[in-house]
C-alpha cells in the first residue's frame, strides 16, 4: 500500500521534474515558429491566414521534413550526415532515368529510391560505427560520391512523363474541414500532396520510435555519453550504425518525395538540402553535441525555416541569395544559443 502511494507521489512529482534539455529547446523552437508565423500574418497579412498557405509550406517541404528527421536521428547519436542532399539528387536522377528510359514503373522507382538510401546508410554507418571514423568526413565523401554518380547516370535534366507516376505525383488529398473562400465566395478546400501524408507518417513513426522504443532511447544514451552507454550495456557501435542506416533510409524516402514534387531528375536538384536539413534540426532543438533532440522540434524547425524564407521573399528580398543568407543567419543564431546553454550548464555543474 505504502509502495503504491509512493509511486503515485512519484508520478505527481513527475510534473515538477525540472525541464529536460530536450523539452527546453523544444519550447524555444515552437515559440519561435509561432512568433514567426504571427509576424508573417501581421506584416504580410492576407495569404498567411489562409490554411492553404500553411499547407503549401508543407507541400514544398515534405521532402525536407523527412530528410531533417533522418538528420535528427543521426545528430541525436552525436553524428552528422551531410550526404542527404546529394543522395536526394541521386535518387531523383536514378528514378527519372528508370521511369523514362528503362521502362520502369512507380514500384521499381520506389525500390530504387529506398535501395540507394539504404546503401548509403549502410556503407556510411559501417565506416562511422565500426571503423570509428569522423562522421563528417565519411559523409562528405558520400556527398561527393553521390554528386558524381548523379552526373555519371545523366548529366542533363530528365523530365518524367510516365503516366502512372504522373498520376501519383498529381494526387491531391483534401484536408477535411479546412479551406478558404475565394473572391466569388466559393469554398475551396485545402489540399496536400501525397508526399505530405508520407512525411507526416514518417514524423509520427519516428516520434514513437524515439520516445517509446528501447532502440530509440539508446540513441539518446549513445549521444549523451557513449562510454557510459557502453557501460550500461548498450551496443554503441550497432546503435550508431542503425542511426546512419535509418538516416539513409530517410534520405531515400525524402529523395523520392522530392522526386514526386519535382517530377524530374537533375544534377541541380536538392542543392544545399543537407544544409537546410541540418539547420532545421538545429533550429528544432537538436544539439550538435548529441543526446538532445526531438522529432516534433524538427517538424517545427522545418516550418520555421520555410516560414522565414517566405517572409524574406515576401519582403521583396527575392534575390536568390537572401534565402541562403537567412538560413545561414538562423543556423548561426541557434548554434550560438546552444553553445551558450551548454556553457552555462557546464558552469552550473562546477
Amino acid at each position, binding site marked *: 500500500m505504502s509502495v503504491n502511494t509512493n509511486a503515485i507521489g512519484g508520478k505527481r512529482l513527475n510534473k515538477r521534474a525540472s525541464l529536460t534539455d530536450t523539452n527546453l529547446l523544444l519550447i524555444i523552437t515552437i515559440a519561435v515558429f509561432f512568433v514567426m508565423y504571427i509576424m508573417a500574418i501581421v506584416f504580410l497579412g492576407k495569404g498567411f491566414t489562409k490554411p492553404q498557405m500553411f499547407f503549401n509550406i508543407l507541400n514544398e517541404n515534405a521532402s525536407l521534413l523527412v530528410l531533417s528527421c533522418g538528420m535528427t536521428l543521426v545528430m541525436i547519436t552525436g553524428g552528422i550526415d551531410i550526404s542527404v542532399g546529394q543522395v536526394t539528387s541521386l535518387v531523383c536522377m536514378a528514378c527519372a532515368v528508370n521511369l523514362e528510359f528503362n521502362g520502369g514503373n512507380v514500384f521499381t522507382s520506389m525500390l530504387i529510391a529506398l535501395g540507394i538510401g539504404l546503401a548509403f546508410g549502410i556503407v556510411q554507418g559501417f565506416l562511422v560505427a565500426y*571503423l570509428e571514423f569522423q562522421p*563528417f568526413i565519411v559523409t562528405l*565523401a558520400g556527398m561527393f560520391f553521390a554528386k558524381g554518380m548523379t552526373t555519371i547516370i545523366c548529366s542533363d535534366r530528365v523530365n518524367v512523363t510516365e503516366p502512372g507516376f504522373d498520376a501519383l505525383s498529381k494526387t491531391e488529398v483534401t484536408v477535411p474541414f479546412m479551406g478558404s473562400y475565394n473572391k466569388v465566395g466559393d469554398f475551396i478546400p485545402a489540399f496536400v500532396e501525397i508526399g505530405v501524408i508520407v512525411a507526416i507518417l514518417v514524423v509520427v513513426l519516428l516520434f514513437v520510435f524515439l520516445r517509446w522504443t528501447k532502440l530509440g532511447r539508446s540513441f539518446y544514451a549513445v549521444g549523451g555519453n557513449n562510454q557510459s552507454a557502453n557501460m550500461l550495456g548498450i551496443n554503441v557501435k550497432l546503435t550508431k550504425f542503425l542511426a546512419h542506416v535509418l538516416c539513409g533510409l530517410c534520405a531515400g524516402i525524402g529523395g523520392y518525395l522530392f522526386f514526386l514534387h519535382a517530377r524530374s531528375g537533375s544534377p541541380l536538384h536538392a542543392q544545399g538540402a543537407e544544409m537546410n536539413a541540418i539547420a532545421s534540426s538545429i533550429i528544432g532543438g537538436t544539439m550538435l553535441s548529441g543526446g538532445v533532440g526531438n522529432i516534433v522540434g524538427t517538424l517545427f524547425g522545418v516550418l520555421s525555416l520555410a516560414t522565414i524564407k517566405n517572409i524574406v521573399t515576401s519582403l521583396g528580398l527575392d534575390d536568390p541569395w537572401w534565402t541562403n*543568407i537567412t*538560413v545561414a*543567419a538562423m543556423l548561426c543564431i541557434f548554434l550560438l544559443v546552444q553553445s551558450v546553454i*551548454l556553457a552555462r550548464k557546464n558552469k552550473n555543474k562546477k
Partner: protein
Amino acid sequence: MTTSEKKISTGNSAKGFFGKLVSNQLFIPLAALLLLVIFNLIADPTFFKISLEPSSTGYYILSGNLISIIDNASELAILAIGMTLVTSASGGQDISVGSAIAIAGSVVLRIAKGYSAGISNGQFAGMIIGAFVLCVIVAALFGAFNGALVAFFKIQPMVATLILFTAGRSIAAWINNNENISINDTRFGYFGNFLPGIPIPTPVFISAACMIIIAIVLKVTNLRLYSQAVGINASSSRLNGINPKVIKLLTFIILGACVAVCGFIKVSRTSSITYAVIANNIEMDAILAVALGGNNLGGGKFNMTASILGAYVIQFLTTTLFKFKVSSSAISAYKAVVVILLIIMSAPVVRKWFSDLKNKRTAAKAQVRKEGA
C-alpha cells in the same frame, strides 16, 4: 658502435629502411604520385610532353599537362597550407573555403570593375594592391568569424563553417549585386595566367611565395609547436601558458589569408566570376590534400610538406581523369572513392588490425627462429 650493428643486421636493415620509408609521412603522397605517373606512362606517354610555344599574346610560354598540373594546383597548395594549420589546432576542417574564395574574388572584382582599361601601369598597380589588401582583410575577417565560433563558442569546426558554406556564395553575389563582371584589361589576367615574357604561369610563383612565407613563419615562430600542442591537448597547453583560443583563431585567420590569395588568382584566371561555380568543391580537395599528406584529421601533429605534396597529387589525379574524358562533376565520385579508401586505410581500427597481424607474424617468425636454434 652503430656501424658494427648495421653490419651485423644487414638482413634487417633493408627491411628497416623499407619500414622507415613506409612510416615516413611523405610516403603516401609520393607513392600515390608514383602510381599516377606510372599509370599515365603506360596509358599515354605523351601525357608528359612539355612544349614551348607562342601563345595568343605572342609570347613564348610552356604548355603541357605537367605545366597545367603545377599551375592548376597552385590554389589547392595554398589552401592546403591553411587547412593543415586549422586541422592541427582545431581538430576539424573548414568546409567554407570554396564559398570564402567566391567572396574574396568578388571583393577583388568589385574594386577592379570601377577602373577603366586605360589607366597607367602605376595606377593599375596601386589598384591591384588595394584590391588585394582589401580582399585579404575581408577573407581574414570571415576566417576570424569561423575561428571565433570554433574557439570561443566551442562549435565543431565543420559545423561552424557550415554557416559560411551556406551563405558564402550568396554573400559573394550580393557584393556585386549578382552582376556578371568581366574585366577587359589584359593586365588583370597576369596573375592567373602569364606575365608577358615569362614562360611559366604566374600562379606557380605565387604559390611558391606562399610556401616560402609559411616555411619562414614556421621557422621563426612557434606556430608549429603551439598549434600541435593545442590540437593534441588543449587543456594541458593552457596550463603551459598557451592560449588555445587565440591559437585556434590565428589558424583560421591564416587560412583566411590563404583563401584571399586563392580568390585573387581564381578571378584573375578568367577575369570574371561565376558565383555559384568558382572554386566549386575545392574544400573537398583541400581536406583530401591534408588527409593524403598523412596528417591526422583529428588534429595534432602535422607535416606541411606532405600536405602540399598531397595537393599536387590531387591535381595530378584530376588532370588524369580529365584526360580520360571524365566530366568535371563526375570527378567528385572518383575522388570520393579515394577519400573512402584513405579513410579505411587510416582508420585506427584498421591500423590496429594491421599491426596485430604484423606482430603475430613477427612473433611467429621469432618462434620459428627459436625452434631452429
